[in-house]
């Protein structure tokens, strides 16, 4: 980050910046050439059918980086992007080369627990359909549970913050049940619900609802009462006060609640998949492990990480849009 930004900003005389950018780009190409060489030129200690394709792929990437670097006059946008990403490309290339050596070539890492990168490529090349189906299953579980739990928690939080009658009844229940991990209720939930799907959704929604309720509540409770005074003198009726004042004012807290709830949802989805619905990436991971096929385990974990990370990204995008009136928002 710092390296590339200094490269960009200190490019006083344009020529010098370009030259340093070219050096970085070529270093990145070199790193990926090393990935190709380690994979393609040394013999494997085991049986990995995708080694050659992996080496060819790395070589293609190395060539592409080199080409883009040399042709920076033609595509300055691409060149700038490349300069910014070069440090990362170098580090990833070196990591892949080292991983290749330690696993497939020198056998330092015990097999099959630490397969080489081409073994993961193999999974993505041949098992993508199965991975896709399970990704979809995880996503459905996550989305449906999160939406139900989010709505329930949001409404509970508003009722708690707005009405002392509601708070009288809900608060003790929330204090008693809320902190309990929803997974602890699993045995009960599974025989109380008609299907493992509905039981899993309930469990995920429960895990989501608690942080949502608490943070929405604290958001509504911390609204500056002067806002209500102003709105009331302008003729805003009590029910509209909730929609026009309480909710927008509480929104920053609500998004903290959504963020925490999403974390809770991820772990509940995993538990639900392992114990209940027998589908999804968590289930795929466990099932693959049972067969000792660790390359599938890693491949699925990577997809899972992408799912979780993009969920958070989407949440932050929505937050950035809805809270654009706030100063100094944290970017994800």
């Amino acid at each position, binding site marked *: 980050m710092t390296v590339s930004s200094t490269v960009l900003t200190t490019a006083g005389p344009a020529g010098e910046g370009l030259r340093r950018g070219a050096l970085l780009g070529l270093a990145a190409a070199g790193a990926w050439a090393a990935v190709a060489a380690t994979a393609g030129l040394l013999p494997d200690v085991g049986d990995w059918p995708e080694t050659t394709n992996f080496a060819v792929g790395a070589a293609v990437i190395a060539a592409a980086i080199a080409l883009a670097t040399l042709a920076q006059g033609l595509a300055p946008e691409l060149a700038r992007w490349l300069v910014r990403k070069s440090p990362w490309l170098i580090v990833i290339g070196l990591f892949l080369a080292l991983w290749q050596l330690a696993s497939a070539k020198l056998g330092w890492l015990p097999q099959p627990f630490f397969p080489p990168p081409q073994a993961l490529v193999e999974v993505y090349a041949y098992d993508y359909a199965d991975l896709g189906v399970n990704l979809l299953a995880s996503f459905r579980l996550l989305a449906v549970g999160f939406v139900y739990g989010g709505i329930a928690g949001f409404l509970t939080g508003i009722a708690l913050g707005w009405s002392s009658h509601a708070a009288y009844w809900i608060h003790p229940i929330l204090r008693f049940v809320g902190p309990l991990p929803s997974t602890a209720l699993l045995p009960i939930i599974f025989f109380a619900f008609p299907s493992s799907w509905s039981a899993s959704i309930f469990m995920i929604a429960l895990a989501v609802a608690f942080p949502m309720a608490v943070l929405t509540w604290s958001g509504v409770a911390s609204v*500056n009462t*002067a*806002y209500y*005074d*102003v*709105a*009331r*003198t*302008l*003729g*805003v*009726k009590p029910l*509209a006060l909730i929609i*026009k*004042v309480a909710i*927008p*004012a509480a*929104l920053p807290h609500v998004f903290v609640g959504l963020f925490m709830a999403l974390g809770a949802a991820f772990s509940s989805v995993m538990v639900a998949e392992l114990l209940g619905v027998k589908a999804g990436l968590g289930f795929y991971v466990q099932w693959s492990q049972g067969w000792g096929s660790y390359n599938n385990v890693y491949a699925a974990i990577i997809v899972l990480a992408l799912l979780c990370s993009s969920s958070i990204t989407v949440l932050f995008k929505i937050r950035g849009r809805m*809270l654009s*009136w*706030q*100063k100094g928002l944290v970017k994800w």
Partner: protein
Amino acid sequence: MVAASYKEDLAAEPASTAGAALDIEHVSHAFDLDGSVLSVLDQVSLNVKPGEFVALLGPSGCGKSTLLRLIAGLEPPSRGVLKEDGRAITGPHPSRVVVFQDPTLFPWRTVWNNVALGPEAQGNLKEQRSRVDDAINLVGLSQFAKAYPHQLSGGMAQRVALARALVNDPSILILDEPLGKLDSLTRLTMQSELVSLWRSKGFTAILVTHDVEEAVFLANRVVIFSDRPARIKADFQVDLPYPRHRGDPRLAELRRASLSHLGLDASW
């Protein structure tokens, strides 16, 4: 800068809204503080004529803001009645709008949407869009209609608060130290703007201020309260024609008289 547009306004249209009469009859108010009773207003009676500009002065914490909250209908008085044009005040109504010391703009609404809240709450924003534009224009902020409150200076924010009140055509405008937090230059400008607005619109104005000079410069009647619980200690007219001049020796005299009622004449 903005004052110019007010003057045009003044020439263009006569007082459009008539102010309302305000009658405060034997109003007492007390707060319950952890079981002990804090008496804040004691038998306050005050009759304000339609269109009058009344300034309320009094020691800090004596109950001025509390009285304004009662006038706005945000709270019912412990005892006594308040009447707008003879009808008892039972709750807030957009004919009595408050501008507080803090502009309290809704940070999630743009300037335009802040000003539009009143018409929006009445359900007639569609027909009144141009009124919202006019109100923003009137305070000289049409360029900032799309800005968010955090992008405004203190004086601009308070102007928006004023526009948000005026768009409702209040018959009583309640002002609780509206210029108290502004720097002195902005304050002087906005004092003149307030007078112009009041003269062109014709509403009844109730202004709480801690600035004696501001009180006698703006108002045609000054009411002075005692320490808590607030009682009316003095009530006098400022019959000087508008526009007034700050250097007027009669203003200096009234100011000295007010200070002496507040027990602050030692410094004079």
